């Protein structure tokens, strides 16, 4: 995953209007604090006059609604990537995801896969039996492949979306928790060959 993105503690200094807006949209704790003591929150974090004006006039209901929509969009992406697990959660799914989503914001253009993996990881801590092993392995392999295997995909002329299959093979072969699972298979193979040659050279001398 791209790293932990716990939003607590990110409001450390005076920031521009857009950054403060992003903080409010990302964290329900910050929104609650903003709603409770708006003036204090503004004077603590906004020095820029434009930010002060914006935050003084903003409607808290709109902030909540926009933040809800952001989380719902993420939930829809997670359901696309891990449909079996999400279906199994039934009507509890959105609420569970909401709890998780408040403390984690994925990064990068593969954020939908990052988000799904992080949620499955988190869910295993809350409801260990809710996560399908095969589904998790598939998402993990898809993510690993997409993150690291641009060179491998470039070499395929078929132009088919073989990412999930190839990634699954890599991860299944090397073990999901091995660090080298995140490298395309040729890399460990090349390293092994180099080591063998070196060993052979050493013994011949």
């Amino acid at each position, binding site marked *: 995953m791209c790293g932990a993105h716990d939003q607590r503690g990110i409001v450390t200094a005076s920031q521009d209007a857009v950054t403060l807006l*992003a903080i409010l949209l990302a964290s329900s704790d910050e929104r609650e604090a903003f709603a409770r003591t708006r003036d204090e929150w503004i004077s603590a974090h906004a020095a820029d006059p*434009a930010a002060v004006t914006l935050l003084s*006039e903003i409607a808290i209901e709109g902030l909540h609604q926009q933040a809800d929509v952001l989380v719902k*969009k993420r939930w829809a992406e997670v359901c696309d990537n891990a449909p079996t697990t999400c279906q199994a959660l039934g009507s509890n799914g959105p609420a569970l995801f909401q709890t998780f989503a408040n403390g984690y914001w994925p990064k990068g253009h593969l954020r939908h896969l990052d*988000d799904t993996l992080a949620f499955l990881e988190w869910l295993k801590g809350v409801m260990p039996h809710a996560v399908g092993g095969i589904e998790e392995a598939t998402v993990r392999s898809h993510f690993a492949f997409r993150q690291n295997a641009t060179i491998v995909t470039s070499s395929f002329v078929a*132009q088919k979306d073989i990412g999930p299959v190839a990634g699954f093979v890599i991860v299944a072969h090397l073990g999901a928790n091995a660090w080298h699972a995140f490298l395309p298979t040729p890399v460990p193979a090349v390293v092994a060959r180099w080591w063998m040659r070196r060993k052979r050279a050493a013994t011949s001398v």
Partner: protein
Amino acid sequence: MGAGLGYRGPLRPFFEQARRAFEERTRRLGETPVDEVEWAPGEHLIRCVEVVAEHFFSRDPQPPREVGSVPLLVHCLDFSLGTPGDLNRPYLEKVQEVLRRLNGAVLSDHLAFTRAGEIELGHLNPVPPTRANVRMIAAKIRQLQEECGVPFLLENITTHLSLPGELRAAEFYQQVVDEADCGMLLDVTNVMVNCRNRNLDPLQFIESLDLQRVVQLHLVGYSEHAGTLFDSHVEDISEDLFGLTRDVIDRAPVEAVIIERDGHWPSADLLRSELVRVQQILDDKQQREQCAAPTISVAS
């Protein structure tokens, strides 16, 4: 161009089917006397295709084979033009590579921010409608047009958050586009969703824009929950949206209309009927313009 479709993995068979049908027609056209054919040459169900640049970041960017040779429009989600500071350079370089390899005809992104500081929200959020932001975003768009070498189109977003500011939503959009000297990618569904959620008239919003800037449209059905509309991209296009699309096309020099479906994949028949209907709206306008064009009479 004409009516087109957003390229998504699950729609590959549909693209393939449309391409094969087009190729078959073209082949038969060569063998058949022109007065016997029922179709016009170049009549492709999908006249242009919009690809999302990010979908090509993790692989070798190649034009999707099943699309054929129709123009490709490159759409971005994450330039985050509303974020203070410079353009995201690594992201720009990846987009440039996609544009070059796919030979993209235009580049587009949203009047929005998706990240700020250390936070990546990942989805589109409104930018405070201030004059300072007009200047900041317009400067970035000018830089994009210069560095990418293709026209840039700015898209309006859906938002559930009304931000106070010096300008109204339409003024803000218009001023950015004017100052950047770029085109508009008007998302008809987003206009409908925003206006209906705020009890405003969508047509009034549209008429408050300089429609000569509109080059491309986005269209997809909206969903409704507890009286609020959402741009979920998973619904069929409703009658009111077709009506609003016609209103825009009647008033603006629209070149392409993209149906951007992201889920609850419809049947091929339904998708085909939506494309045909959109193309019909574009053709109707073209016919009206041809009829209204002055004819030169030669006096004998």
